[in-house]
């Protein structure tokens, strides 16, 4: 993470240039030191698939991958992610495991308003990347930081369970 001059903190208008690899492409943008990563992604890079739900890391709507791991983009400043590789729902949609999760979520209607869905998918991806054959309990536990007001969660658990089992039968290929 790159440092910056402390005096900038006193002036909210000053911006800092940050560079990321977002969804496989190099991008650079000007951010204020106080801008969170979620605001930077949504406002500066127009990647509005990542959502802000609680702005305090409690709801999981803002989850993105930073250097391959799921992080709350509302809990880090954009400047802290400088130089990082960021993958959001928009970029991950085309890859194997996430596409399988999306198809299963669709088939089982594991979403209603869809606002939690990108964060849910990022977290499900994280779980299945770490644990090939999670139990339903493991899945519920892994999702315990993802709030969904619409579905009651069961279809989400079912969808992740089904994808995990399908991948298990296919030799765990993702």
């Amino acid at each position, binding site marked *: 993470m790159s440092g910056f001059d402390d005096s900038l903190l006193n002036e909210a208008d000053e911006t800092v240039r940050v560079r990321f690899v977002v969804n496989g492409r190099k991008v650079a943008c000007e951010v204020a030191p106080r801008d969170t990563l979620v605001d930077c992604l949504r406002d500066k890079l127009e990647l509005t698939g990542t959502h802000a739900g609680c702005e305090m890391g409690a709801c999981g709507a803002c989850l993105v991958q930073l250097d391959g791991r799921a992080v709350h983009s509302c809990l880090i400043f954009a400047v802290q992610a400088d130089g990082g590789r960021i993958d959001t729902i928009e970029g991950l949609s085309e890859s194997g495991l996430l596409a399988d999760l999306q198809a299963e*979520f669709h088939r089982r209607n594991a979403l209603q308003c869809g606002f939690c869905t990108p964060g849910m998918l990022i977290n499900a991806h994280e779980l299945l990347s770490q644990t090939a054959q999670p139990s339903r309990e493991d899945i519920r536990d892994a999702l315990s930081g993802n709030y969904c007001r619409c579905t*009651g969660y069961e279809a989400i658990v079912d969808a992740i369970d089904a994808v995990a089992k399908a991948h298990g039968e296919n030799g765990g290929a993702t």
Partner: protein
Amino acid sequence: MSAPLTSLDRPNSYIGRALPRPNAKRLLAGRGRYVSDLKLPRMLYAAFLRSPHAHAKIVSIKIDEACAREGVHLVATGADLAKICTPWTGTLDHFKGMTSAPQLPLPLDRVVWAGQAVVAVVAESRAIAEDALELIEVDYEDLPVVVDIDGARKADGPLVNPGSANNTCFRSQLDSGVVDDAFAHAAHVVEEEFSFGRHTAVTLEPRAIIADYDPSAGMLTVHHGTQTPYQFQDLYSRHYNIPEARVRVIATDIGGSFGMKLHVYHEDMAVVGLSILLGRPVKYVADRMESFVSDIHARDHRVRARVALDAKGEILAMDVLDLTAIGAFSTYPRTSVVEGNQVIRLIGAPYRFKNYRATLEVIFQNKVQTSQYRAVGHPIACAVTERLVDMAASKLGLDPFAIRAQNVIPDDAYPQTSPTGYRFEALSHQACLKRLHEMMGYDALRAEQADLRKRGIYRGIGIAAFVEITNPSPAFYGVGGARISSQDGAILSLTPSGEVRCLISVTEQGQGTEAIISQIVADQLGLAQECVKVITGDTEVTPHGGATWACRGAGIGGETALQATRALKRNILEIAALILQEQPSALDILDGEIVDASTRNPRLPIAEIARIAYFRSDTLPPGTQAQLTVSHHFAPQGYPFAFTNGIQGCSLEVDVETGFIKLLKHFIVEDCGRVINPMLVDEQLRGGIVQGLGAALFEECRYSDTGQLMNGSLADYLVPMPMEMPDIVIAHVETPTADTELGAKGVGEAGTAAASACVLNAVNDAIAPFDATISSIPITPAKVLKALKRF
């Protein structure tokens, strides 16, 4: 009537089929277009300075420094907006005698709850606007605060509205039969006082709005995360004096609503005014803290109720007092008394007793407004009724299933009128009870419970029957003077390529409105579902209607689509008959083809009818004018409301050392009439149940003695998360309404209606060995330990 709607073996038979929602793929790909995502050219951002006091006089407001801040375009106070916006009052004529003070976007001289917006700043970014808020100085003078129900009812206590006689908003009474007589002669009477905490919707996307006033056209466009764009078109037009046809409200994707986003909010009205003052688009998205202090809350009831029974356990009478506190104003335009009204009218609804008395008292206090949120009133009516029934069963030594079987209105006894005045067309309590008993494996569960108790493990089993009110006619709002439609409209076109576009007034919040409408249209026309495009939520293009609330999407919206499709089909067949030189009655449509009605042999694709009608009308007989667009409206008639019913059951475990409750399994047997898409119906039930479970165990807006919300963040206010929620087993009984061809009644609120009652009964069942009882929701670990005298 119902036969052709249920045969799933013919082509295009979509009604009754579990199909994924076509519009869900966008959301899965992160391609939703929520209002919070939108950015318009030259758009500015609003932020609001909020009152730190629950009740105070505004002495002075200093805005100079904020105005001078670079990037700030406007700082507006109540007086600035009052010049262009007329006030509103949250009363309805059919609630006789109700009062509420007039409201403005921002207050002029007094704040009435902590968190009320006082000053608006519009700037080039939300961050700059918030910086400027810190430069505003407001001088307040504290006024006495009315916080709880008892304080509000004290004879010489402080008043929310100085100058008024008391803090009463509305009183209502129901009295039918001979209640005193029934209690005097009863063999058994059980009585309890219940309390229901405040909770709130906590939609994951907070309220979001962009108002875009174009002074050169005199045109206001509002992108609004709401269920009811037509209602807001009317309100923005009337309160800002803009012709209705020049107000356009667009409700695109919305991150959850559950009733919360169909009310008028002060900030939303202000944002419209700010855009008018600036002639530029202005955006406001509530942050989570703002949502907790400004979104409507719900519930906040204290109910004292008693039931009289004869020696065999037959319910004879009920007597109810419901006190509910609603905040400082009644919400506009639907009021804050509907919940209480539904509580006193739905209590006892599954049962056949005739003597009923209820008093409702609706009270002002210095808190944010309460109003309609998913299952309005139902969870309270259901918990009061079902807990009393369980208490009676226990007193008489009856099983909970047995006492209900003995008292529910028999399935063959309909139509019936409840002692509260509701007319039930046809319900299925007996069938639902029987099915639930089997589904739960009730006898085995009881045996297991008894075994575990010997080992010091305390499990509880609870059931709760419910009746849900749906598909409201004008009796709900229209008769009270509210300009809220009970009808819906659809415009259906056969496109030149032979596909169908359906513009319909019901709206989508993720429950699958667009999906079921496309199923109905495709089914009724005889077309593949993917050839139907449904468009919702834009007052400029979709016809005026009530939109989606009170479970009216399927029942009223669905019937509108069905009737419109049949009209379009008649018109298509008329043209086809001319081309094929047949009688229209000899033809039908199947999978996009005109076919012989008797042989089903294909004659001509409907795309060919469209081609001829649009491009070669010269080849049609002289005088023929093909009508391949139909517009159709449908308003419910017959019964003033549809009613659905069902019963829920749950199994849970209470840790008597810690007071923690573990939900093990939840069950529901539900009768929503015709099921259009079983998967979507089940998901409505699951989502609704989990909202009810949140209310049962976790959710409460907790206030200090000075009226400050103490837990207004997602770290402090507990919502149901995946780990705590059980799997939910679902079964259906189908009793279609005969008021419509479709027969659907709606399903959005059934889950929430009875979930908390079910848990309340199960917890009481679990702790029964300790002679402990609980009658307060949410059932927190502290309340459990207190009931067990361990805290």
